[in-house]
């Protein structure tokens, strides 16, 4: 009977469309959440890469600046603290410590022209600079993703879905702006 089909179709649409919307919105939230998790780990990856550079760097500098023992020890210590860091807070603190130690190391390297001319040192310096950039980019990407994720959780109608399924707002990665008066090792 034609009439029965129409009714059936109508019911299908009335029930089906909201369900479809629900699925689409939920999936979008899940994807954004996973992306933000992944973005967070990306930062970790870059931080680890930086820490991994340290032994090589220390060896190279040692060859030319044996007397700068304290500086070298600082850097090595900071690195081992980082590798032991577990929680987010510990990692953040260790990161800052390593950043500080590295700055000092490069400032000191200024006084050793032979070191500055060493190929390996230059390569490491470039690598480090690259990694610092990547850390910054990774943080930026993480914040961008968090923005999308938080937006999706707060705009209508996905805010309803977010509430139902217990999605939580994520925190932005705020760098404490460590003084950017990096001693500029300029070759001008």
């Amino acid at each position, binding site marked *: 009977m034609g009439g029965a089909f129409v009714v059936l179709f109508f019911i299908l649409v009335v029930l089906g469309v909201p369900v479809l919307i629900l699925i689409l919105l939920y999936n979008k939230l899940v994807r954004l959440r996973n*992306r933000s998790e992944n*973005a967070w780990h*990306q930062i970790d990856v*870059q931080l680890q890469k930086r820490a991994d550079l340290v032994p090589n760097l220390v060896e190279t500098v040692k060859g030319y600046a044996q007397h700068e023992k304290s500086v070298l020890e600082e850097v090595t210590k900071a690195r081992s603290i980082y590798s032991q860091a577990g929680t987010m807070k510990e990692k953040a603190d260790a990161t800052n410590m390593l950043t500080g130690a590295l*700055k000092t190391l*490069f400032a000191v390297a200024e006084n050793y022209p032979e070191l500055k001319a060493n190929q390996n040192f*230059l*390569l490491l*310096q*470039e*690598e*480090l*600079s*690259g*990694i*610092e*950039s*990547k850390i*910054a*980019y*990774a943080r*930026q*990407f993480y914040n*961008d*993703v968090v923005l999308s994720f938080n937006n999706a959780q707060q705009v209508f109608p996905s805010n309803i879905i977010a509430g139902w399924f217990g999605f939580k707002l994520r925190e932005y990665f705020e760098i404490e702006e460590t003084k*950017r008066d*990096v*001693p*500029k*090792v*300029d*070759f*001008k």
Partner: protein
Amino acid sequence: MFSGTGHKGAGSGLPIGSISSSRSSENEKKGPRASMIYEEIAANKRRSFLLISFFVMFLLALGWIFGMSYGAGEAGVAMALAVALVISLVTFFWGDKMVLGISRARPVDRKQNPYLANVVEGLAIAAGVPTPKAFVIDDSAPNAFATGRNPENSSVAVTTGLLKKLNRLELEGVIAHEISHIKNFDIRYAMLVAVLVGTVALVSDWMRRSFFYRGRRKKGGAGSGLIVVVALVLAILAPVIAQLIRLALSRQREYLADASGALLTRYPEGLASALEKISKDTEPLEAANKATAHLYIVNPLLEHRGKLNSLFSTHPPAEERIKRLRAM
């Protein structure tokens, strides 16, 4: 039908002086308002969508009018479409290798040019795409392009001229623009548009030809005279209109890549300054020709660069791009 989009790094030339990367030190200056860039991107995507919708409707209307004015005969069109499809698929899967081969691009050596390798990787991280393969082209004309059907299979190439002439911030701007093309799937987008254009051209061609032969046969089932005239006029104009739409779309995507790139670096001035330098350079790019011109960041065919030509150019005029970037 090649797709690609059209940046420089530290070779042995640039001083590896500062510890902090040039980017982070420049961020101390007043940055762009990110909200403006987001708006620019959203507006651009809307415009692209409208243009594509118009294009599809145009194509459908064309098909309808042609169908009305002429009885049947879909076999010819079907075959032509099949050919177009094959060409499109080949280009889709091998287009990037072809284009890199033509330009004689060589892969970037991480030890020789660590800065360039790091820039590409860093910006890919910022964009959230896999790192594209980086290539260098031996040509003193400054230019760059990106190619690849999706972010997982993409490549970015820069000329040695670009590496020499731009500073670090400018190079980052260029690479950010190219990576944005990859992220926005512009290469695939351009392919889709090229297929649409090709289809319009083929259908129009068929229509013109069938009209030519019409007089020699008994009229059977054809539409009224007016429809036929309209169809014929369209058959002549349609390919041109289709090309104009394609070029308009291409220009929109260039603006989008500019804005997206600026969002990646948070420093539009880098790209603006790079565009200034590149567009002022009058050296012709050896490997480029009409088929590949649309790939590059600035139109390598010098005669197409000025404002007057802009309707027929794949790229917007550089002055306009620079103006928009500096307004962000």
